C-alpha cells in the first residue's frame, strides 16, 4: 500500500501531445477509477504508471519515490490486462507463480503463496488447468490472482471487465470491490463504462482528450459536474441539456419557452447558458411545460420517456407507470434545486447557490 502522485504528466508521440499535463493525487488504499471516452488517454496514463510507456514529462511517484526511470518490476505494481494476458502454455498455478519464480523465490514459498491467493479467489480446484480450459470469469480471476500473489503496493486494472457478458460483469465488479476492501491496496482502475466507475470508485477521474475534466467522489461528480462534458458523461441516461439564455431572471429557451430558475441566476442577465437537468429531476406537473412524447420505454421499476421539450429532445425517468402513447403531450416541471446552469462559451458550471 502506498500513495500515488501524478504530477503534471505529459505524453507525446513526436510532436503530437496526447496527454496535456495530468495531476492526480491518490491516497494510500484508495480505489481510483479513470473514466472517459475511448481515445481520451486513460489507458496510456495507466501504462505510464505501469512503466510500459515512457513518461514524456512530469513525475509519477509511488510511495513517495519517483518512479519515472524505474523498470516496471522495480515499481512494485501489478497489472490486470483487458485481455487477461494469461500465459497459455502454463497452468493456472504457474501463471500465478510466474512473478515469484522470476524473483527466484523458494519453490515451497511460491506454492504456499499461490495456494493462499487461489483460496481467496475460489481457484484451488483449477490450479492444474490451462487457461484455455477456463471460463471467462475464471480467467479473469486468475489474472487478478496473478496480480495479488505479489502483494504489490499498487494494483492497475486496464478495463478488466469489458470482455465479460453483462451478468458476469456485475458479479466480477463486486468481487473486485470486495477484494479491495479486504486488501486495502491502492488501486487505479481504467474503464470507459461510467456505471462501473460510479459503483466501484472511491474517487473518479473523468478524462477527455488528454485532460482531466474533474476529480471527485462519484456523488460529487453526479451532483456537481464541473462542466458540460462531465455532466453529459456521468449518469445514465445522460443529463438533459437545453440551450438558451437568461432573460428577466428566467431561462428563455431557443424556442421561447420560459422556465423558472433559482433567483440567483438573475445576475447572469442576458448571458447565453445551457440548462442541465437530470432525467429523474423532471416531474409531472399540470402547471408545467408541455412536452410531446416521442417514445416510452418501461423497464419495470421505472419508465424512461423521450420527449420534445423547449425544442430539445429530453429524457425523463419516472417511478410512476406512464400509460401515455407517443404523440401525446405530458406536462412537466423541473425540480428547482436540481437545475444546473453551464456557461455556453466556456462549458463551465455556474454555481447557483453556495452549497450547490
Amino acid at each position: 500500500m502506498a500513495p500515488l502522485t501524478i504530477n503534471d504528466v505529459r505524453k507525446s508521440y513526436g510532436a503530437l501531445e496526447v496527454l496535456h499535463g495530468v495531476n492526480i493525487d491518490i491516497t494510500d488504499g484508495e480505489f481510483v477509477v479513470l473514466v472517459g471516452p475511448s481515445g481520451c488517454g486513460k489507458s496510456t496514463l495507466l501504462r505510464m504508471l505501469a512503466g510500459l510507456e515512457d513518461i514524456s514529462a512530469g513525475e509519477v511517484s509511488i510511495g513517495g519515490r519517483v518512479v519515472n526511470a524505474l523498470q516496471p518490476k522495480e515499481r512494485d505494481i501489478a497489472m490486470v490486462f483487458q485481455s487477461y494476458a494469461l500465459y497459455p502454455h502454463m497452468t493456472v498455478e504457474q501463471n500465478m507463480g510466474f512473478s515469484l519464480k522470476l524473483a527466484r523465490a523458494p519453490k515451497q514459498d511460491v506454492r504456499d503463496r499461490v495456494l493462499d491467493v487461489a483460496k481467496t479467489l475460489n481457484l484451488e480446484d483449477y490450479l492444474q488447468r490451462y487457461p484455455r480450459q477456463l471460463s471467462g470469469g475464471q480467467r479473469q480471476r486468475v489474472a487478478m490472482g496473478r496480480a495479488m500473489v505479489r502483494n504489490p503496493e499498487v494494483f492497475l486494472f486496464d478495463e478488466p471487465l469489458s470482455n465479460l457478458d453483462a451478468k458476469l460483469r456485475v458479479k466480477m465488479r463486486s468481487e473486485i470491490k470486495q477484494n479491495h476492501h479486504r486488501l486495502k491496496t491502492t488501486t487505479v482502475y481504467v474503464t470507459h463504462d461510467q456505471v462501473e466507475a460510479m459503483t466501484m470508485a472511491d474517487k473518479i477521474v473523468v478524462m477527455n482528450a488528454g485532460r482531466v475534466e474533474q476529480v471527485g467522489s462519484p456523488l460529487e461528480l453526479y451532483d456537481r459536474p464541473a462542466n458540460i462534458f462531465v455532466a453529459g458523461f456521468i449518469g445514465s441516461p445522460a443529463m438533459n441539456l437545453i440551450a438558451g439564455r437568461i432573460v428577466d431572471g428566467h431561462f428563455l429557451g431557443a424556442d421561447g419557452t420560459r422556465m423558472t430558475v433559482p433567483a440567483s441566476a438573475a445576475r447572469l442577465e442576458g448571458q447565453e447558458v445551457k440548462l442541465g437537468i437530470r432525467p429523474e429531476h423532471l416531474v409531472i406537473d399540470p402547471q408545467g411545460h408541455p412536452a410531446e412524447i416521442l417514445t416510452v420505454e418501461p423497464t419495470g421499476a421505472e419508465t424512461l420517456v423521450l420527449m420534445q421539450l423547449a425544442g430539445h429532445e429530453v429524457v425523463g425517468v419516472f417511478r410512476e407507470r406512464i400509460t401515455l402513447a407517443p404523440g401525446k403531450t405530458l406536462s412537466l416541471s423541473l425540480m428547482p434545486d436540481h437545475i444546473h446552469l453551464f456557461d455556453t462559451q466556456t462549458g463551465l458550471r455556474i454555481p447557483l447557490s453556495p452549497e450547490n
Partner: protein
Amino acid sequence: MSGKTSKLTRPGLPGWLILVGSVLLVLVCLFPFWWMVVSSVKTLRELYTVPPIWWPDTPTFQNYSNVLFQSNIPRYFLNSVIVSAGSTGLALILAIFASYGFARFKFKGKPLLQSLVLVAQLLPTAAIIVPLFITLRFLGLVNTYWGLILVYMIITLPLSVWMLTSYFKNIPVELEEAAIIDGASRLECLFRITLPLSLPGIASVMVYAFVTTWNEFIFALCFATDSSVKTLPIGLAEFSTEFNTDWGAVMAASVVMTLPIAILFLSMQRLFVGGLTAGATKG
C-alpha cells in the same frame, strides 16, 4: 450427422469427383518415390527390362549393401548431417534474435533492413558462386565443414527471418507486457513466453532450413571437393560416371538420403497443427 446434413446440398463438385481427384494427385506425387524404392531392390538386369517390372520376384538388398559398405555414402551421410544440422542450428539462433527485433522493436530503417534481408534470397545462385568461392578461399574455408555451414546459413537465413518475424508478430504483445510487469527481462520474455508459444513456427523454420541444405547441390559441388566434406547429393552424382551409371546404387542411396527427411517431417507434424496460444487472451 448424416440425417441432417444429407438434406443440405453442398455447393461445388460432387464428393466422388473430389475423391478421385485427390487419389490421382497423391498417386502422381508418390510415383517417383515408389519407383525409387522398387528400383533399389532390383538387380541391374531387371532395371533395364522392357516392359518394366513393377515388383521384382526376388527383391535383392545387394544395392544397399554396396552403398552402405563399399561406397563413400556413409561418410557423406555423416557430412550432410553435420553440415545441415550445423547450418540449421546457426540459422535458427540468428533468425530468432533478428526476427524478435523486427517483430517487437521500432527503429529507424526497419522496413529497409527487412527488405535488404530478402535481397540475398533474390540473387541467382550462379551469380554468387564465384564471389563466395573467392571469399571462402580467402578465409581458408574451402573444403571445410564451416565453409559449407556458413554458406548454407546465408541462403536459409533470409526466409527463416521472414517466417519467424510473422510468427512472432502473431503472439499477443500483452503476454510479454504481462511478463515484463511480472518482472521478466526482454530475454526472459523471449525465452519463457514467446519462444515456447512459437514452437510451430520454429519447427517450420527448422524443416525448411534442414531440407534446403540437405538437398543443396551446386554450392556443395563447388566448395566441397574433398571426400572428407562432400555431402550426399554429390555422393549420388558420383555413381554416374563418364562410362556408366549404377542405377541400383543410386536408388538405394536415394532411399538412404530420403529417410531422415521423412522422419523429420513426421516427427514435427504434430507441431504444425498449431493452436498453442488458445486461451491466452479473450479467445
